[in-house]
């Protein structure tokens, strides 16, 4: 209810702003025709711009390109105020005409405006630069024509250009069409995120903003791109942020991002240290959230108040890109990108939870759990990407090397009771894990495109290599105390040393469009076929050395049973023949409709070989499964109206049982979770059907776009758990094939409506996800289906007024329900959150932000938990270049934050709470160093 009120408020507010804009400014119009009278024709692509004249400055109100009749026609202009029309056309003198629109007629006709051709003998002083011009098929906006504050960035410039909209969600549209890619001088700028370029680059270094369409394979796939062309000599520069903050409760944060670029090279160095759950997993996260313009209402890199535990994090990283081709094109590019990222994290996690397990006719078991977890992770990651394209050859090489060292200390205490509240058992465990992991991944992709006039239409091949090496040392101390059967009381103190090596190689090879190799292109019209083969080779080696503590000798002794070495080789091959048929129907200038039918005959061959010190694990298995694929695609483009895309696809995959499921070494220490084996296990077969639909508005104004997708998985012989629970909560788990059908159905939908008002933008969106699954399980021999349902709906509305006010209202609602018909049990939980975020730029130097989220959690058998999280901040900018920022933030003002565990699986249901970040106040000082262009020598 509260959510609806918030959204209603936002909608009313937006409408009110729009109406008041119309009321305060009476509207007038001006028209005219631009003509070259000497040569006797009208000028069809002349630029006409209208400025409001004031003693201090002229403000651009609107611009137009003259139409096929040489005419311009401006509406929505102020009455009775001095205006100026400037007309530009290549090869002509600039024409300036001052006028004002009388209030009584509300319209003025300037009739024929005569343009005079520029001759080479006459030198002209350029009085003004046209704000917009057409250069070939590129629309160009000249930055110099827009007067802005000296500290303005590209985003401020874009906001000044009529018909370009920077929306609340950072999407950029030009005449209603979304920009899909933004480049600087034709190249990706520090990873390609728009914000890095638009919120850092100074408006003063920009020569032009260029907007153009690129066709990927045909005009229907063309996308709208934006390129920021820098002024000559300004292709060099640096920018970044250095900031540090200190807060109450021992909270601190430090962020650093220093970046430099030249025509061929980009280099960035980032670092972040904090204890406020503000986590970055890569260089880009820090880079995109350290922009000069400021983060606004963006939420991707902020203290995470919903995250469980408190994390102290240190991170440092660097990114380097080198373009061997200074001006890359679609046909020629050669780029190397290398990144390094290091992170060091300490996390303290504490949780208390209650788990209820149904046992059919028997009593339910209720566990009260207390978990404490301390972990430290040190991770290094180096990755690189090399792209080379020349004519019809393309090569991409991706590499990554990761080293992770982690230490984990998990303490668990669990007390189990029955429905009569009588204690039945107690489990306590300490797990101390030291892990050292090195992994290397390589992927090479080569694509040979079609050569002019050749029968052979090209090939594509991908090779990937993954090498993983993990060394783990684990100490497990377990006490199990049974109050029902004192004989089953057990105590373990066991050490595990695991050495795991895994080498994975995949080779995909495809020969496409083979028809013309064998037949005349006119034969079997619309049909085509391709051959592909996916070969996977996996070699895994696992060595385990297990030692048990002997209290008598106070020594750890070798555990002969669990100590083991296993080698597993798996070969998977999937040859496929794909036949496709396309049917096209089009009516020029009216519509294009395309149907594509694909039918693939694929066969999976899998051979698995296990060699172990334990003879019973020497198992060889082979699987063979016909895995057909089929799909139908339909696209319908109605010119000037909409584009619709439908897809229906079907495919088959199999999941083979692992050695761990077939014949494991049974570790008795996991008393509440003893995994047993089953040699009779078969592979499970998954048949998947997907249906999707997408609607794209092509009208270009106040667009409505939506899409939805269904995904159905139907599992045959699904491997499920058969759980045997003793009265004192000891559990033995056997994997078994389910002879009943298991299935998963999911649905998601997105709807987005955008409204461009005169000086503001309003967007409303609805996202929904729905999942339903039916899983089987055995509990003490009794078979049960568990019907699970989960759904999430999120409605959000976004309002921006110039760059002064940004408001976002969101309502999310998620629920799940779990039903075990055989045991007549049912659990459900509901989580709802209403958020109202606002950002108000009081002056050019002061910004206020506030975020309030009202949370409500309800679940079966527990009381509702409600809390409100309110964060607020005030930012002040200092110095001439606004380079210094002082920020005061108050987080969790109401001191109500909490983190809820509300979870269910096929056999049980858990509710509880975790430790989270709570109220603190912080003062942060940041400095934004920035300079563009070569330094001039004095």
């Amino acid at each position: 209810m509260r959510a609806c009120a918030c959204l209603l408020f936002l909608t009313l507010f937006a409408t009110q702003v729009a109406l008041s804009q119309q009321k305060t400014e009476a509207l007038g119009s001006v028209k005219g025709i631009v003509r070259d009278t000497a040569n006797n024709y009208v000028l069809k692509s002349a630029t006409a711009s209208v400025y409001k004249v004031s003693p201090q400055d002229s403000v651009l109100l609107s611009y137009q390109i003259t139409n096929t009749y040489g005419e311009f026609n401006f509406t929505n202009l102020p009455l009775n105020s001095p205006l100026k029309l400037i007309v530009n056309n290549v090869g002509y003198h600039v024409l300036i005409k001052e006028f004002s629109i009388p209030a009584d007629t509300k319209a003025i006709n300037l009739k024929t405006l005569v343009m005079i051709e520029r001759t080479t003998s006459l030198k002209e002083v350029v009085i003004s630069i046209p704000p917009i011009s057409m250069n070939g098929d590129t629309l160009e906006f000249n930055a110099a024509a827009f007067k802005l504050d000296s500290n303005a960035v590209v985003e401020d410039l874009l906001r000044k250009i009529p018909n370009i909209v920077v929306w609340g969600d950072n999407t950029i549209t030009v005449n209603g069409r979304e920009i899909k890619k933004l480049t600087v001088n034709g190249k990706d700028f520090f990873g390609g995120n728009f914000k890095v370029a638009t919120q850092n680059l100074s408006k003063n270094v920009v020569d032009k903003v260029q907007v153009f369409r690129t066709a990927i394979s045909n005009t229907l796939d063309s996308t709208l791109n934006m390129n920021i062309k820098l002024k000559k000599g300004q292709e060099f520069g640096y920018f970044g942020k250095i900031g540090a903050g200190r807060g109450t409760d021992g909270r601190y944060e430090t962020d650093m991002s220093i970046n430099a670029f030249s025509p061929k090279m980009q280099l960035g160095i980032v670092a972040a240290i904090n204890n406020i759950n503000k986590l970055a997993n890569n260089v880009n996260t820090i880079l995109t959230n350290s922009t000069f313009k400021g983060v606004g209402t963006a939420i991707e890199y902020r203290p995470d108040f919903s995250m469980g535990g408190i994390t102290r994090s240190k991170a440092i990283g660097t990114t380097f890109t080198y373009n061997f081709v200074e001006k890359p094109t679609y046909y020629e590019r050669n780029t190397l990108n290398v990144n390094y990222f290091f992170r060091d994290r300490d996390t303290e996690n504490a949780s208390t939870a209650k788990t209820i397990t149904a046992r059919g006719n028997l009593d339910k078991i209720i566990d009260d759990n207390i978990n404490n977890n301390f972990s430290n992770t040190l991770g290094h990651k180096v990755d690189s990407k090399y792209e080379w394209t020349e004519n019809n050859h393309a090569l991409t090489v991706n590499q990554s090397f990761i080293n992770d060292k982690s230490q984990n200390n998990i303490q668990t205490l669990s007390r189990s009771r029955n429905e009569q509240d009588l204690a039945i058992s107690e489990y306590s465990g300490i797990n101390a894990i030291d892990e050292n992991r090195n992994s290397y991944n390589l992927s090479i992709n080569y694509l040979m495109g079609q050569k002019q006039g050749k029968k052979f239409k090209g090939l594509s091949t991908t090779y990937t290599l993954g090498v993983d090496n993990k060394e783990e040392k684990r100490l497990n101390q377990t006490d199990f105390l049974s109050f029902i059967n004192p004989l089953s009381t057990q105590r373990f103190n066991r050490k595990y040393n695991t050495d795991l090596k895994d080498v994975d190689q995949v080779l995909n090879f495809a020969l496409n469009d083979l028809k013309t190799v064998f037949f005349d292109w006119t034969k079997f019209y619309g049909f085509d076929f391709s051959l592909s083969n996916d070969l996977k080779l996996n070699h895994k080696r696992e060595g385990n050395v297990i030692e048990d503590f002997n209290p008598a000798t106070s020594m750890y002794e070798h555990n002969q049973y669990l100590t083991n070495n296993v080698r597993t080789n798996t070969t998977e091959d999937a040859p496929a023949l794909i036949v496709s048929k396309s049917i096209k129907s089009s009516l020029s200038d009216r519509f294009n409709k395309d149907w594509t039918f694909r039918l693939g005959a694929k066969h999976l061959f899998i051979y698995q070989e296990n060699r172990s010190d334990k003879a019973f694990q020497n198992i060889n298995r082979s699987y063979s499964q016909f895995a057909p694929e089929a799909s139908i695609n339909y696209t319908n483009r109605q010119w000037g109206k909409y584009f619709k895309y439908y897809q229906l696809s079907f495919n088959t995959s199999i999941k083979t049982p692992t050695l761990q499921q077939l014949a494991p070494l049974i570790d008795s220490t996991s008393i509440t979770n003893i995994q047993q084996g089953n040699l009779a296990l078969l592979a499970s077969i998954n048949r998947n059907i997907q249906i999707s639909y997408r609607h794209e508005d092509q009208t270009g104004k106040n667009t409505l776009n939506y899409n939805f997708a269904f995904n159905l998985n139907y599992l045959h012989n699904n491997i499920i758990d058969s759980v045997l629970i003793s009265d004192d909560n000891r559990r033995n788990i056997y994997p078994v094939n389910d002879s009943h059908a298991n299935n998963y159905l999911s649905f998601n939908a997105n709807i987005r409506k955008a409204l461009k008002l005169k000086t503001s933008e309003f967007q409303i969106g609805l996202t929904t996800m729905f999942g339903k699954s039916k899983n089987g399980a055995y509990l003490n021999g009794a078979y049960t289906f568990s019907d699970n349902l989960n759904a999430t709906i999120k409605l959000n509305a976004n309002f921006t007024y110039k760059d002064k006010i940004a408001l976002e209202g969101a309502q999310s609602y998620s629920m799940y329900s779990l039903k075990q018909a055989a045991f007549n049990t049912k659990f459900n939980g509901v989580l709802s959150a209403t958020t109202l975020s606002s950002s108000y730029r009081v002056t050019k130097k002061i910004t206020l932000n506030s975020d309030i989220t009202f949370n409500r959690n309800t679940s079966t058998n527990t009381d509702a938990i409600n809390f409100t999280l309110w964060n607020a901040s005030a930012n002040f900018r200092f110095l001439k270049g606004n380079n210094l920022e002082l920020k005061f933030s108050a987080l969790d003002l109401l001191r109500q934050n909490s983190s809820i565990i509300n979870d269910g699986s096929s056999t049980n249901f858990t509710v509880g709470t975790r430790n989270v970040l709570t109220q603190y106040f912080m003062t942060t000082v940041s400095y934004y160093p920035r300079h563009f262009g070569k330094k001039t020598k004095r």
Partner: protein
Amino acid sequence: MKKALYTLLTLSTIFFVANAQEDYIDVSKTQTLRLDPRQTRGLTVSQLFDEVKFVPLQTTPESLFGRISRLEVANNYYIISDQDTHCILLFNLDGSFKTKIKLEKKPYNFEYRLIDEPFETKLFVQNGLTELTYDLTGKLLKKEDIKQNEFEKILYYFKPEEIEVKYEYISDDRIYEIAALKDDKVLYKVFPHEKDFISKQFDLRTILKYANTPNELLYTRPYEYNIYTISPKGVKLDYKLIFPSEFSLPEGFTTNYDNYIKRSDFTNKNRKIFQGLSSPFKSGNYLFFGAKGLVSTRGEKRDFAYNLKTNSLVALVDIEPDALSYYLPVTSIALNPEFSMSGGFHLFKNNYLYTSISTLDMKALKDQNPNKNVKYDSALAKYFENYKSTNNRVLVVLKPKKD
């Protein structure tokens, strides 16, 4: 297969070979014209045309078609071939639908021409390897399967002399761009190429294939600015056009840029340069022609009419609408910079010139028409009144002035 090669032709590059055995090209009366596309004069519609008529082609579920791939006018019918619906449609001169011939869908385009000279009462259709003859009521008169498709290689047919002009004519291990034949006997052959040129060149010829200037056909070649006349007697070089250097290809272009990638790279970087001429035809004192190239800007001057008497150059994009055309432009050039892509001129026959405008363009031109009080004729008024974005194209019939 040959059709396939022809299609590939349009995707490859051309390669000229000099000093081949070829017939004489008459250059005795060649005129050199120096033209500057930056120095054009504007004319109104009524200064260039005597008559203008907009003929909305009736739209019914039966008569719906995509675009006009070939137009013929004969015996009071507009005859239109449409490759989108694979149909030949016949409309009366008022635009009302008469009948249509639905052809079997084949992987490539079908072709047709009027036969039964000089009465033009029959349609000869080649659809793949099937030849069909229809009368103008749409009745099938004859059907025959053939082994090889040669139809498309006939460029022109001189009726009284019964001479066929063929292109890509193979003889003496060479391919001749143009050859004239009578009763399968070669009268003359010109512009020879090495035999493998088909697999490595790109044909940019878009001559106005269906211009009916009696006993004359104007012809242009890629990457040059010459206009030739093909007649039963031979080939004449009539006009040698010279443009300012910023519009001209560099010397030795075809030898220095001898493959597709080099050429497309050059033309992409030099978008202003004309890559050749297209669709030439002569009407009275006017020589009409298009300049080929990568056009993309609205209002760009690429299609011209040159007055051979006054030596003034008119860009078709600058022809100003006036009362004769109800203040509507008579072509869609102003909206579609690439005129030939939006249909161009379909036919010039018996002193009438035919083009067409798509329904979306008609709407845009009407909405932009500054003369809001214009009174359209009844056909146009009815068309705009019952406007639908799915309507058929509107045919524009123009009669160019003689002087």
